[in-house]
């Protein structure tokens, strides 16, 4: 399997009374009241350092993402971060995973097609093209997308991007939301007809249906841990079976918060405050900023009304021990962590594990020691999973040759 480093680039030094002052991590916190541009410059640099440290330590890929107007993560344009990472890992066996630019809020979406094509060229064909629909707050509040049009724009934009990457002639696009008279993209991606496409989602079945129909990879970005993900992953694999797809685990990626230390007790002690910071301060968003009428299509909305909504959990009422017990964060000694992860990887059939080894207020030294211990003591026990029976068809072709054991971001095998 592939094990990748995911980073949100949060604001790491929020005031202790943030929860009392603001009802939401999104939209309401006013920059000049709590943030500092100099500090944020250092946070961006620390984020890039931590990701490159992870690449050097042996992770298979580096994941960036796009969010707006919040304290929880503000890589407002992930292509900027991806460009730095692509350049700094030039010639290495590291996937550049953009998870990614948000199509519905970018007009015209060929702008993203161009940025991704640039990244694929700069990285030498190592791009994984992630296409999120965008959180409601990001797309419709920060960027003004009409809620009921968010998903229809998304589907049209993705079809346009994929066509623009491989079309052999100049073409006109006369869509419902986008009209472009002459499309002839420069540059085109190295990977043809298109780089692997990963589509993030939180578990709405409409997204999973779309992913399976188009034979892309579904990235389950739940933030609620392996334990809580069984219903969604079971439904996903059922969908695959129903639509005639095979059970290749590389169709499924999963994000998990992880904290490793020498002992279980030590891990709980050092990661507890950062876990609380993440869930109490950063991930908490007022429901009315996320449940905006129209962002879910009708069937998805009915499904959400029928189901147990995860938004019914008030994250601000939970403490570190709750996050550990519920498995939102996998913490412990290397032995504990690898056992929990292996159990989860097998149960959910995870092909790509996206590790959030930085979360909340974690300082860079702690993040790096987490990465280091994880890469030395846990990663080698995961990396062989699935590889003997399945081919990762959702990974850049030039990086697919098996790495030697314990290789750490070495030279690209197949490309050289």
């Amino acid at each position: 399997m592939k094990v990748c480093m995911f980073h949100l680039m949060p604001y790491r030094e929020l005031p202790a009374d943030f929860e009392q002052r603001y009802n939401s991590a999104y939209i309401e916190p006013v920059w000049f009241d709590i943030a500092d541009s100099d500090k944020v410059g250092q946070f961006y640099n620390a984020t890039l350092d931590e990701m490159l440290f992870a690449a050097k330590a042996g992770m298979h890929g580096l994941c960036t993402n796009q969010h707006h107007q919040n304290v929880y993560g503000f890589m407002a344009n992930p292509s900027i971060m991806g460009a730095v990472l692509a350049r700094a890992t030039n010639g290495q066996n590291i996937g550049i995973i953009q998870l990614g630019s948000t199509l519905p809020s970018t007009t015209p979406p060929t702008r993203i097609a161009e940025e991704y094509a640039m990244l694929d060229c700069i990285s030498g064909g190592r791009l994984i093209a992630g296409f999120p629909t965008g959180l409601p707050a990001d797309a419709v509040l920060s960027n003004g997308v009409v809620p009921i049009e968010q998903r229809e724009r998304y589907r049209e934009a993705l079809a346009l991007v994929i066509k623009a990457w491989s079309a052999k002639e100049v073409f006109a696009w006369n869509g419902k939301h986008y009209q472009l008279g002459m499309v002839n993209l420069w540059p085109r991606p190295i990977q043809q007809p298109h780089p692997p496409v990963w589509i993030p989602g939180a578990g709405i079945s409409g997204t999973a249906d779309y992913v399976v129909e188009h034979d892309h990879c579904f990235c389950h970005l739940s933030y609620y841990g392996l334990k809580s993900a069984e219903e969604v992953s079971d439904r996903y694999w059922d969908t695959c079976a129903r639509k005639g797809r095979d059970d290749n685990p590389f169709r499924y990626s999963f994000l998990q918060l992880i904290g490793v230390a020498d002992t279980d007790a030590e891990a709980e002690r050092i990661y507890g405050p950062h876990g609380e910071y993440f869930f109490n301060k950063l991930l908490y968003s007022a429901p009315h900023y996320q449940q905006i009428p129209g962002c879910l299509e009708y069937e998805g909305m009915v499904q959400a009304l029928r189901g147990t909504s995860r938004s019914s959990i008030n994250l601000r009422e939970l403490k570190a021990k709750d996050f550990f017990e519920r498995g939102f964060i996998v913490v412990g000694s290397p032995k504990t962590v690898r056992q929990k992860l292996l159990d989860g990887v097998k149960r959910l059939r995870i092909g790509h594990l996206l590790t959030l080894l930085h979360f909340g207020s974690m300082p860079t030294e702690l993040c790096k020691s987490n990465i280091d211990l994880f890469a030395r003591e846990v990663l080698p026990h995961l990396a062989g999973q699935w590889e003997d029976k399945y081919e990762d068809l959702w990974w850049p072709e030039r990086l697919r040759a098996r790495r030697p054991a314990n290789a750490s971001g070495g030279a690209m095998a197949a490309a050289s």
Partner: protein
Amino acid sequence: MANPEVRRFKLWQDRIQTEVEISGSGPPLVWLHGPWGLNPDRAFVERLASDNTVYAPRFPGTTRGDPDGVRALVGWLDLAVYHGELFNRLELEAPALAGHSFGALLAAEIAAVTPKLVRRLVLIDPVGLWRDDQPVKNWMVLSDKARRRALFADPDGEAARRFFEVPKDPEERVNTLAQFNWSLACTGKFVWPIADRGFKNRIHRVSAPTLIVWGNADGIIAPAYAQEFAKGISGARVELVDNAAHLPHLEQSDAVVKAVLDFLR
């Protein structure tokens, strides 16, 4: 209360299905519901039917079984032309139009596009204009508490209780919430993210005699906007309603029914 006659139409090259509830007798009056759908307005509509034939269509997308019908309408031009088609199918020549909030804006837009085809116009807390010093609240993005306060002068009163009431039966609960949310989604399509889509450029075309009704405590769009609408519509009359917010027809139903019926007579 007598049940209204419900007629179902396929319109717009058969891409939209809509139900129209028809009740009462007398001159034709079309009621255009607000962002929360037709259901909360039923009792009010029934009272207007005492001396009018009231036609209450469901907004595209809000008729059961056709949630995606609204996707066939791309913008305000489509919306106005669609309603022209609907009125033709109902064989209405020059009906009076009355609407609430988003529905009032829709009524006003139709009256601006086809001034001679609207006999009289009633606008209850319409949206559609904008003043930087009095920004209109986005009613689709409010906490439960803020929404209650914005919609009702008495957020704990009987009208508010009825408006937000959800059935206990699980399936009925899902249906009720789905209708409520989806009505917001479908109507919101035409006014997101700011309910100013150029009506100020067209308002001068409204020529029908017009009554503007406004809840004095409206927390979505301030009563100051009553004068903004009146300034643009020649001869328009304004009635402010005390102890009511954005839904005066539900919170002070007696006063609003009387004002509307008197105006239409």
